Protein backbone atom coordinates (compact mmCIF):
# COMPACT_ATOMS: atom_id res chain seq x y z
CA UNK A 1 0.00 0.00 0.00
CA UNK A 2 2.65 2.50 1.04
CA UNK A 3 4.56 1.57 -2.09
CA UNK A 4 1.80 2.63 -4.43
CA UNK A 5 1.41 6.03 -2.76
CA UNK A 6 5.16 6.58 -2.81
CA UNK A 7 5.39 5.87 -6.52
CA UNK A 8 2.27 7.82 -7.50
CA UNK A 9 3.96 11.25 -7.93
CA UNK A 10 6.37 9.76 -10.45
CA UNK A 11 3.64 7.99 -12.40
CA UNK A 12 2.89 10.62 -15.05
CA UNK A 13 6.56 10.81 -15.83
CA UNK A 14 6.75 7.01 -16.15
CA UNK A 15 3.87 7.10 -18.62
CA UNK A 16 6.03 9.17 -20.97
CA UNK A 17 8.97 6.91 -20.46
CA UNK A 18 10.10 5.04 -23.55
CA UNK A 19 9.57 1.33 -23.23
CA UNK A 20 9.42 -1.70 -25.52
CA UNK A 21 5.96 -2.84 -26.69
CA UNK A 22 6.03 -5.96 -24.52
CA UNK A 23 6.45 -3.95 -21.32
CA UNK A 24 3.18 -3.08 -19.56
CA UNK A 25 2.70 0.53 -18.51
CA UNK A 26 2.35 -0.26 -14.83
CA UNK A 27 5.85 -1.75 -14.59
CA UNK A 28 8.85 0.41 -13.88
CA UNK A 29 11.16 -1.59 -16.12
CA UNK A 30 11.31 -4.80 -18.15
CA UNK A 31 13.36 -6.34 -15.33
CA UNK A 32 10.70 -5.52 -12.78
CA UNK A 33 8.03 -6.98 -15.06
CA UNK A 34 10.07 -10.17 -15.50
CA UNK A 35 10.67 -10.50 -11.74
CA UNK A 36 7.00 -9.95 -10.88
CA UNK A 37 5.83 -12.46 -13.50
CA UNK A 38 8.41 -14.99 -12.38
CA UNK A 39 7.30 -14.56 -8.77
CA UNK A 40 3.65 -15.06 -9.75
CA UNK A 41 4.48 -18.17 -11.76
CA UNK A 42 6.27 -19.68 -8.77
CA UNK A 43 3.29 -18.92 -6.51
CA UNK A 44 1.08 -20.76 -8.99
CA UNK A 45 3.50 -23.70 -9.05
CA UNK A 46 3.46 -23.83 -5.24
CA UNK A 47 -0.33 -24.28 -5.31
CA UNK A 48 0.29 -27.10 -7.80
CA UNK A 49 2.85 -28.67 -5.46
CA UNK A 50 0.29 -28.62 -2.62
CA UNK A 51 -2.32 -30.16 -4.93
CA UNK A 52 -0.15 -33.04 -6.12
CA UNK A 53 1.31 -33.30 -2.61
CA UNK A 54 -2.14 -34.19 -1.28
CA UNK A 55 -2.40 -37.03 -3.81
CA UNK A 56 1.09 -38.27 -2.93
CA UNK A 57 0.25 -38.22 0.80
CA UNK A 58 -2.94 -40.19 0.20
CA UNK A 59 -0.94 -42.73 -1.79
CA UNK A 60 1.67 -42.99 0.98
CA UNK A 61 -0.90 -43.59 3.72
CA UNK A 62 -3.00 -46.08 1.77
CA UNK A 63 0.10 -47.96 0.64
CA UNK A 64 1.05 -48.48 4.27
CA UNK A 65 -2.47 -49.48 5.20
CA UNK A 66 -3.11 -51.96 2.39
CA UNK A 67 0.48 -52.88 1.67
CA UNK A 68 -0.01 -56.36 0.07
CA UNK A 69 -2.75 -55.02 -2.21
CA UNK A 70 -0.61 -52.07 -3.32
CA UNK A 71 2.39 -54.31 -3.97
CA UNK A 72 0.39 -56.78 -6.07
CA UNK A 73 -1.40 -54.02 -7.97
CA UNK A 74 1.82 -52.17 -8.79
CA UNK A 75 3.21 -55.37 -10.33
CA UNK A 76 0.64 -54.81 -13.07
CA UNK A 77 2.50 -51.73 -14.29
CA UNK A 78 5.01 -52.12 -17.09
CA UNK A 79 8.48 -50.91 -16.05
CA UNK A 80 9.67 -50.73 -19.67
CA UNK A 81 6.97 -48.24 -20.67
CA UNK A 82 7.41 -46.33 -17.41
CA UNK A 83 11.16 -45.97 -17.95
CA UNK A 84 10.68 -45.04 -21.60
CA UNK A 85 8.20 -42.35 -20.62
CA UNK A 86 10.57 -40.98 -17.97
CA UNK A 87 13.31 -40.67 -20.61
CA UNK A 88 10.85 -39.01 -23.02
CA UNK A 89 9.76 -36.49 -20.41
CA UNK A 90 13.31 -35.65 -19.30
CA UNK A 91 14.24 -35.15 -22.97
CA UNK A 92 11.28 -32.82 -23.42
CA UNK A 93 12.43 -30.83 -20.38
CA UNK A 94 15.87 -30.58 -21.98
CA UNK A 95 14.50 -29.36 -25.32
CA UNK A 96 12.36 -26.84 -23.41
CA UNK A 97 15.40 -25.56 -21.49
CA UNK A 98 17.24 -25.22 -24.81
CA UNK A 99 14.22 -23.33 -26.11
CA UNK A 100 14.61 -20.79 -23.31
CA UNK A 101 18.28 -20.43 -24.23
CA UNK A 102 17.40 -19.89 -27.91
CA UNK A 103 14.88 -17.25 -26.88
CA UNK A 104 17.45 -15.50 -24.68
CA UNK A 105 20.08 -15.51 -27.41
CA UNK A 106 17.48 -14.56 -30.07
CA UNK A 107 17.75 -17.65 -32.27
CA UNK A 108 14.36 -17.81 -33.92
CA UNK A 109 14.66 -21.04 -35.91
CA UNK A 110 16.38 -22.73 -32.97
CA UNK A 111 13.52 -21.72 -30.70
CA UNK A 112 10.89 -23.01 -33.13
CA UNK A 113 12.80 -26.31 -33.46
CA UNK A 114 13.04 -26.70 -29.66
CA UNK A 115 9.36 -25.94 -29.16
CA UNK A 116 8.36 -28.39 -31.92
CA UNK A 117 10.56 -31.11 -30.39
CA UNK A 118 9.06 -30.47 -26.94
CA UNK A 119 5.60 -30.63 -28.51
CA UNK A 120 6.38 -33.96 -30.22
CA UNK A 121 7.93 -35.49 -27.08
CA UNK A 122 4.84 -34.42 -25.12
CA UNK A 123 2.65 -36.24 -27.66
CA UNK A 124 4.90 -39.33 -27.48
CA UNK A 125 4.51 -39.35 -23.68
CA UNK A 126 0.73 -39.26 -23.99
CA UNK A 127 0.89 -41.98 -26.67
CA UNK A 128 2.78 -44.31 -24.35
CA UNK A 129 0.37 -43.46 -21.54
CA UNK A 130 -2.49 -44.45 -23.88
CA UNK A 131 -0.87 -47.85 -24.49
CA UNK A 132 -0.68 -48.37 -20.72
CA UNK A 133 -4.24 -47.19 -20.07
CA UNK A 134 -5.52 -49.43 -22.88
CA UNK A 135 -3.98 -52.48 -21.20
CA UNK A 136 -5.62 -51.53 -17.88
CA UNK A 137 -8.99 -51.14 -19.58
CA UNK A 138 -8.64 -54.53 -21.31
CA UNK A 139 -7.74 -56.25 -18.03
CA UNK A 140 -10.60 -54.53 -16.20
CA UNK A 141 -8.23 -52.72 -13.87
CA UNK A 142 -10.12 -49.45 -14.12
CA UNK A 143 -11.95 -48.82 -10.80
CA UNK A 144 -15.72 -49.04 -11.12
CA UNK A 145 -18.47 -51.49 -11.94
CA UNK A 146 -16.35 -53.57 -14.31
CA UNK A 147 -13.35 -53.86 -12.01
CA UNK A 148 -11.96 -57.40 -11.93
CA UNK A 149 -10.04 -58.98 -9.04
CA UNK A 150 -8.93 -61.92 -11.16
CA UNK A 151 -5.24 -60.90 -11.40
CA UNK A 152 -5.03 -60.77 -7.61
CA UNK A 153 -7.17 -63.75 -6.62
CA UNK A 154 -5.68 -66.05 -9.31
CA UNK A 155 -2.22 -64.57 -9.99
CA UNK A 156 -1.21 -67.66 -12.00
CA UNK A 157 -3.80 -66.73 -14.63
CA UNK A 158 -2.16 -63.32 -15.10
CA UNK A 159 1.13 -62.95 -16.95
CA UNK A 160 2.41 -59.91 -15.05
CA UNK A 161 1.37 -61.27 -11.64
CA UNK A 162 2.92 -64.65 -12.44
CA UNK A 163 6.20 -63.05 -13.54
CA UNK A 164 6.37 -61.11 -10.27
CA UNK A 165 5.72 -64.30 -8.30
CA UNK A 166 2.55 -62.98 -6.66
CA UNK A 167 0.63 -65.20 -4.26
CA UNK A 168 -3.19 -65.11 -4.22
CA UNK A 169 -4.50 -62.34 -1.95
CA UNK A 170 -7.41 -62.93 0.45
CA UNK A 171 -10.60 -61.40 -0.95
CA UNK A 172 -10.81 -58.48 1.51
CA UNK A 173 -7.20 -57.46 0.75
CA UNK A 174 -7.57 -58.06 -3.01
CA UNK A 175 -10.47 -55.59 -3.07
CA UNK A 176 -8.09 -52.82 -1.96
CA UNK A 177 -6.16 -53.14 -5.24
CA UNK A 178 -9.00 -51.04 -6.66
CA UNK A 179 -7.84 -48.22 -4.39
CA UNK A 180 -4.34 -48.48 -5.86
CA UNK A 181 -5.72 -48.16 -9.37
CA UNK A 182 -7.98 -45.31 -8.31
CA UNK A 183 -4.93 -43.41 -7.08
CA UNK A 184 -2.94 -44.52 -10.15
CA UNK A 185 -5.54 -43.07 -12.52
CA UNK A 186 -6.08 -39.97 -10.38
CA UNK A 187 -2.37 -39.17 -10.23
CA UNK A 188 -1.28 -40.12 -13.75
CA UNK A 189 -4.55 -38.68 -15.10
CA UNK A 190 -3.98 -35.29 -13.44
CA UNK A 191 -0.40 -35.41 -14.68
CA UNK A 192 -1.58 -36.22 -18.20
CA UNK A 193 -4.11 -33.36 -18.02
CA UNK A 194 -1.24 -31.00 -17.20
CA UNK A 195 0.65 -32.40 -20.20
CA UNK A 196 -2.36 -31.82 -22.48
CA UNK A 197 -2.70 -28.22 -21.30
CA UNK A 198 1.07 -27.75 -21.75
CA UNK A 199 0.98 -29.20 -25.27
CA UNK A 200 -1.91 -26.88 -26.21
CA UNK A 201 0.07 -23.85 -24.98
CA UNK A 202 3.14 -25.14 -26.85
CA UNK A 203 1.11 -25.23 -30.06
CA UNK A 204 0.15 -21.61 -29.53
CA UNK A 205 3.77 -20.70 -28.73
CA UNK A 206 5.10 -22.35 -31.90
CA UNK A 207 2.94 -20.00 -34.01
CA UNK A 208 4.00 -16.95 -32.00
CA UNK A 209 7.67 -18.01 -32.11
CA UNK A 210 7.53 -18.37 -35.90
CA UNK A 211 6.32 -14.78 -36.04
CA UNK A 212 9.35 -13.81 -33.94
CA UNK A 213 7.47 -12.91 -30.77
CA UNK A 214 9.96 -14.40 -28.32
CA UNK A 215 13.24 -13.60 -30.01
CA UNK A 216 13.11 -9.81 -29.76
CA UNK A 217 14.04 -9.47 -26.09
CA UNK A 218 10.78 -10.71 -24.57
CA UNK A 219 11.75 -13.98 -22.91
CA UNK A 220 9.32 -14.02 -19.97
CA UNK A 221 6.55 -16.08 -21.56
CA UNK A 222 8.85 -18.83 -22.82
CA UNK A 223 10.72 -18.81 -19.51
CA UNK A 224 7.58 -19.14 -17.39
CA UNK A 225 6.09 -21.79 -19.62
CA UNK A 226 9.41 -23.61 -19.17
CA UNK A 227 8.88 -23.46 -15.40
CA UNK A 228 5.46 -25.08 -15.84
CA UNK A 229 6.82 -27.78 -18.14
CA UNK A 230 9.71 -28.61 -15.78
CA UNK A 231 7.26 -28.74 -12.88
CA UNK A 232 5.20 -31.36 -14.73
CA UNK A 233 8.48 -33.24 -15.28
CA UNK A 234 9.22 -33.13 -11.52
CA UNK A 235 5.79 -34.59 -10.71
CA UNK A 236 6.57 -37.52 -13.00
CA UNK A 237 10.06 -37.90 -11.46
CA UNK A 238 8.25 -38.83 -8.21
CA UNK A 239 5.27 -40.65 -9.75
CA UNK A 240 7.50 -43.06 -11.66
CA UNK A 241 9.40 -44.61 -8.70
CA UNK A 242 6.39 -44.51 -6.35
CA UNK A 243 3.94 -46.19 -8.74
CA UNK A 244 6.23 -48.43 -10.80
CA UNK A 245 9.41 -49.19 -8.93
CA UNK A 246 9.29 -49.37 -5.14
CA UNK A 247 7.15 -52.51 -4.92
CA UNK A 248 9.23 -54.63 -7.29
CA UNK A 249 10.89 -56.50 -4.46
CA UNK A 250 8.23 -56.51 -1.79
CA UNK A 251 6.56 -59.88 -1.54
Amino acid at each position, binding site marked *: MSDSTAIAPGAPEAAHHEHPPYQRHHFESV*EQQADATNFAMW*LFLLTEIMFFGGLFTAYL*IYRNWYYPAFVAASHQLNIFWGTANT*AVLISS*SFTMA*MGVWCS*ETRRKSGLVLCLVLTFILGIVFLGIKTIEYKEKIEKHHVPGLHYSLNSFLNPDSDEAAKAAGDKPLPLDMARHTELYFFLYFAMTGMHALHMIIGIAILGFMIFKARAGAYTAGHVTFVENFG*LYWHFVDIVWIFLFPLLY*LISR*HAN
Partner: protein
Amino acid sequence: MSEHTEHGAQHGAGHVEHEHHVTPPIVYIVIFVTLLILTGVTVGASYVEMHVFNPIVALLIGVVKATLVILFFMGVKYSTRLTKLTVGAGLFTFLVLIGMTLSDYISRAWGRW
Protein backbone atom coordinates in the same frame (compact mmCIF):
# COMPACT_ATOMS: atom_id res chain seq x y z
CA MET B 1 12.78 16.65 -5.50
CA SER B 2 13.81 14.24 -2.78
CA GLU B 3 11.14 11.85 -4.02
CA HIS B 4 12.71 11.90 -7.45
CA THR B 5 16.14 11.03 -6.09
CA GLU B 6 14.71 8.22 -4.01
CA HIS B 7 12.80 6.98 -7.01
CA GLY B 8 15.90 6.99 -9.14
CA ALA B 9 17.86 5.12 -6.49
CA GLN B 10 15.20 2.39 -6.33
CA HIS B 11 15.25 2.11 -10.07
CA GLY B 12 19.01 1.69 -10.03
CA ALA B 13 18.84 -0.88 -7.25
CA GLY B 14 16.32 -2.86 -9.32
CA HIS B 15 18.88 -3.15 -12.10
CA VAL B 16 21.56 -4.45 -9.76
CA GLU B 17 19.13 -6.94 -8.22
CA HIS B 18 18.27 -8.69 -11.46
CA GLU B 19 20.90 -9.16 -14.11
CA HIS B 20 19.22 -11.61 -16.49
CA HIS B 21 21.29 -14.77 -16.38
CA VAL B 22 21.67 -16.85 -19.54
CA THR B 23 22.47 -20.47 -18.70
CA PRO B 24 24.82 -21.86 -21.36
CA PRO B 25 23.68 -25.02 -23.25
CA ILE B 26 26.56 -27.09 -21.84
CA VAL B 27 24.97 -26.82 -18.37
CA TYR B 28 21.64 -28.08 -19.76
CA ILE B 29 23.39 -30.93 -21.58
CA VAL B 30 25.28 -32.04 -18.44
CA ILE B 31 22.09 -31.93 -16.34
CA PHE B 32 20.14 -33.78 -19.06
CA VAL B 33 22.70 -36.61 -19.21
CA THR B 34 22.87 -36.76 -15.39
CA LEU B 35 19.08 -37.05 -15.20
CA LEU B 36 19.08 -39.91 -17.74
CA ILE B 37 21.82 -41.72 -15.81
CA LEU B 38 19.92 -41.28 -12.53
CA THR B 39 16.79 -42.67 -14.20
CA GLY B 40 18.81 -45.76 -15.15
CA VAL B 41 20.20 -45.99 -11.61
CA THR B 42 16.75 -45.80 -10.00
CA VAL B 43 15.38 -48.52 -12.32
CA GLY B 44 18.43 -50.69 -11.64
CA ALA B 45 18.15 -50.13 -7.88
CA SER B 46 14.52 -51.30 -7.95
CA TYR B 47 15.70 -54.75 -9.08
CA VAL B 48 18.07 -55.05 -6.11
CA GLU B 49 16.57 -56.47 -2.92
CA MET B 50 17.05 -53.81 -0.22
CA HIS B 51 13.87 -54.41 1.83
CA VAL B 52 12.81 -51.14 3.52
CA PHE B 53 15.56 -49.25 1.72
CA ASN B 54 14.07 -49.78 -1.75
CA PRO B 55 11.53 -46.96 -1.39
CA ILE B 56 14.04 -44.79 0.49
CA VAL B 57 16.68 -45.10 -2.23
CA ALA B 58 14.07 -44.49 -4.94
CA LEU B 59 12.82 -41.35 -3.18
CA LEU B 60 16.36 -40.09 -2.52
CA ILE B 61 17.25 -40.42 -6.20
CA GLY B 62 13.95 -38.68 -7.01
CA VAL B 63 14.84 -35.80 -4.69
CA VAL B 64 18.29 -35.45 -6.32
CA LYS B 65 16.72 -35.41 -9.79
CA ALA B 66 14.06 -32.89 -8.76
CA THR B 67 16.72 -30.67 -7.16
CA LEU B 68 18.77 -30.70 -10.38
CA VAL B 69 15.68 -29.75 -12.41
CA ILE B 70 14.73 -26.95 -10.00
CA LEU B 71 18.24 -25.49 -9.70
CA PHE B 72 19.31 -25.66 -13.34
CA PHE B 73 16.41 -26.29 -15.75
CA MET B 74 14.19 -23.92 -13.77
CA GLY B 75 17.16 -21.66 -13.11
CA VAL B 76 16.51 -21.11 -9.40
CA LYS B 77 20.28 -21.19 -8.78
CA TYR B 78 20.65 -18.01 -10.85
CA SER B 79 17.40 -16.31 -9.91
CA THR B 80 16.56 -13.45 -7.56
CA ARG B 81 16.54 -13.86 -3.80
CA LEU B 82 12.76 -13.38 -3.89
CA THR B 83 12.38 -16.46 -6.10
CA LYS B 84 14.75 -18.50 -3.92
CA LEU B 85 12.83 -17.50 -0.81
CA THR B 86 9.50 -18.33 -2.50
CA VAL B 87 10.66 -21.79 -3.56
CA GLY B 88 12.23 -22.47 -0.16
CA ALA B 89 9.17 -21.29 1.78
CA GLY B 90 6.88 -23.33 -0.47
CA LEU B 91 8.87 -26.55 -0.03
CA PHE B 92 9.08 -25.95 3.71
CA THR B 93 5.29 -25.48 3.99
CA PHE B 94 4.77 -28.56 1.83
CA LEU B 95 6.99 -30.69 4.11
CA VAL B 96 5.24 -29.34 7.22
CA LEU B 97 1.84 -30.25 5.76
CA ILE B 98 2.91 -33.77 4.76
CA GLY B 99 4.87 -34.27 7.98
CA MET B 100 2.00 -33.24 10.22
CA THR B 101 -0.54 -35.31 8.29
CA LEU B 102 1.66 -38.39 8.49
CA SER B 103 2.48 -37.88 12.17
CA ASP B 104 -1.24 -37.67 12.85
CA TYR B 105 -1.86 -40.98 11.09
CA ILE B 106 1.12 -42.63 12.76
CA SER B 107 0.21 -41.51 16.27
CA ARG B 108 -3.54 -41.94 16.08
CA ALA B 109 -4.63 -45.04 14.20
CA TRP B 110 -1.53 -46.83 12.95
CA GLY B 111 -2.14 -50.58 12.92
CA ARG B 112 -5.85 -50.23 13.68
CA TRP B 113 -7.33 -50.08 10.22
